[in-house]
């Protein structure tokens, strides 16, 4: 089929013991869209990301990117399908620098193995060239996200907002086609949020990366989303344009109920 959607989630369910976190949730995302997922705390948003990215295996249902089945794959296999993500509770490599964190995102594109690594003794050795080439790429990302001042600092010493950006940098470094952002603006100052909105747009417009965004801040979601899905208790409440979703009485109620 030629007009397959870029990315589809089809009736996925996930339970934890008695608790059903996702109930037959379905949606699709078109190439180049910024698609937002909203819903109150505990609605199942992060669980959705974990099911897509392979940290959890959905009990039933299917996830496909560009027609390829990725349901139940390991996270590294999902990453190889060009899906990258950030985490709600920052998951950086705390004892590594910003440079090394983002460089780790280049892992799949680098080729150095144990033997070539051991022989990293001169400038033109295979592993030294591999390192320098990809460090150059990382510096492009560092420049793009204004992380120059943090480049050689341990990420654990960076302020919270910068850590979130560094994590975004690492996700970008994998060169994804689909980027999953789990509450990237949570805990940011207004100024940092403005920068982030700008970057998210740029990531889509300049790099052509499709984005699924989990976000609580309705204003931000309205500002940048092409379409929105609202979920509650693991089920789809409504899906549609910003207008359709934010004016939906169920959404308004769920949000007011949760806050």
């Amino acid at each position, binding site marked *: 089929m030629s007009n397959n959607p870029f990315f589809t989630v089809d009736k996925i369910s996930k339970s934890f013991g008695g608790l059903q976190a996702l109930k037959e949730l379905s949606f699709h995302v078109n190439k180049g869209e910024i698609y937002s997922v909203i819903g109150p705390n505990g609605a199942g948003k992060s669980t959705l990301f974990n099911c897509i990215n392979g940290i959890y295996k959905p009990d039933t249902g299917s996830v496909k990117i560009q027609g390829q089945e990725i349901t139940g794959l390991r996270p590294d296999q999902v990453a190889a399908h060009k899906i990258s993500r950030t985490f709600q509770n920052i998951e950086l490599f705390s004892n590594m620098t910003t440079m090394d964190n983002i460089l*780790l995102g280049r892992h799949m594109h680098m080729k150095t193995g144990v033997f070539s690594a051991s022989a990293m003794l001169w400038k033109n050795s295979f592993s030294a060239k591999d390192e320098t080439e990809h460090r150059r790429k990382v510096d492009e990302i560092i420049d793009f996200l204004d992380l120059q001042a943090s480049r050689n600092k341990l990420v654990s010493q960076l302020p919270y907002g910068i850590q979130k950006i560094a994590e975004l940098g690492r996700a970008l470094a994998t060169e994804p086609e689909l980027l999953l952002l789990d509450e990237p603006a949570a805990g940011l100052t207004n100024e940092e949020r403005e920068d982030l909105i700008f970057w998210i747009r740029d990531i889509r417009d300049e790099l052509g990366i499709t984005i699924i965004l989990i976000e609580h801040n309705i204003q931000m979601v309205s500002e940048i989303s092409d379409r929105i899905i609202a979920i509650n208790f693991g089920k789809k409440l409504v899906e549609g344009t910003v207008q359709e979703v934010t004016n939906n009485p169920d959404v308004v109620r769920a949000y007011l109920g949760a806050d």
Partner: protein
Amino acid sequence: MDMKRHHYEDVQFLHGWANKFWFAVFVVLVIAAPYMFPAQLFLISLIGVNIIIALGLNILTGNTGQISLGHAGFVAIGAYTTVVLMQSWMIPFPAALIAGGILAMLFGVILALPALRLEGPYLAIATLAFGIAIKIILGNIPGLGGHNGISVIGMDLGFTMITSEVGIYYVIAGIALVMGIAARNIVKSRVGRAFQAIRDSDIAASAAGINLAGYKTMSFMISAFYAGIAGGLWAVLLGYINPNMFEFVVSIEYFAMVVVGGLGFVAGSVMGAAAVTYLRVNSDNLNSVPVIGWLLDLMSIDLTVQTGVTWVITGIVLILVVVLEPLGLYGIWLRIKIYWRTWPF
């Protein structure tokens, strides 16, 4: 913003004149050691062997975050393989040594299997059991000399035999140097970065495309290979092997080396192995050891005749390191370096 960045210099081995100078000094010391400290040649050789073990263990524990309290098992496999191949099969030492390393590495795969499912204390217990099992099995395989072990004479290179203490020292030192540089380069590049990523956040590492099972297994293999090679060298250095050399406390001692030296730092492996080995060899004469001896004298404690007291000392040192300086001797050295850099201001 057009900042000039030297990407190669970020990873270059011995970047800058100061590093080159100090490394040259170190190499000269290694070469001159047999003439500077002829009476301590055995100790220095043993330190070389243990540095190799610590380098490998540090990659596993310090960099990948996987504990092993059974490394004496890998050392034993390397030692027995090398000796049996040399003595019974007449295989030249270099081939026998490498075979020992490779067999230990294959056992590393076996130990990695449970490690993929276990964490923290459970992994510690599994590895501990592995180390003990290897020791018992080796003591009971017919033809391996039981509890009396096997004796070894020198390194048969095929065309010549190295039997002198100095010759054996240089072989150990050369191999330790090469394996040290290799460890440093592994840690600094893609593979080592993957190990550290697994240590710091395995879910983020796998989300970035790292196969957790594959890399954990690889780390066990590298670590076991180092231990196996060291085992073969240790056997030749001692001139014999027997199962008691691979007692489980020996594994704990290896673990202490990397913790005392500095988890995750290649230089830490070197420092930790040197310090712990020195203490161990001087264990029946602790009152003559610098610092500790002075402290003992101060408290008028005479440990000259006590046995097993190194374990107590090792334990105390371990606790002190974990509490006071988690980066170990390497961390202390870094502080000194920073102190002198800013001196006299």
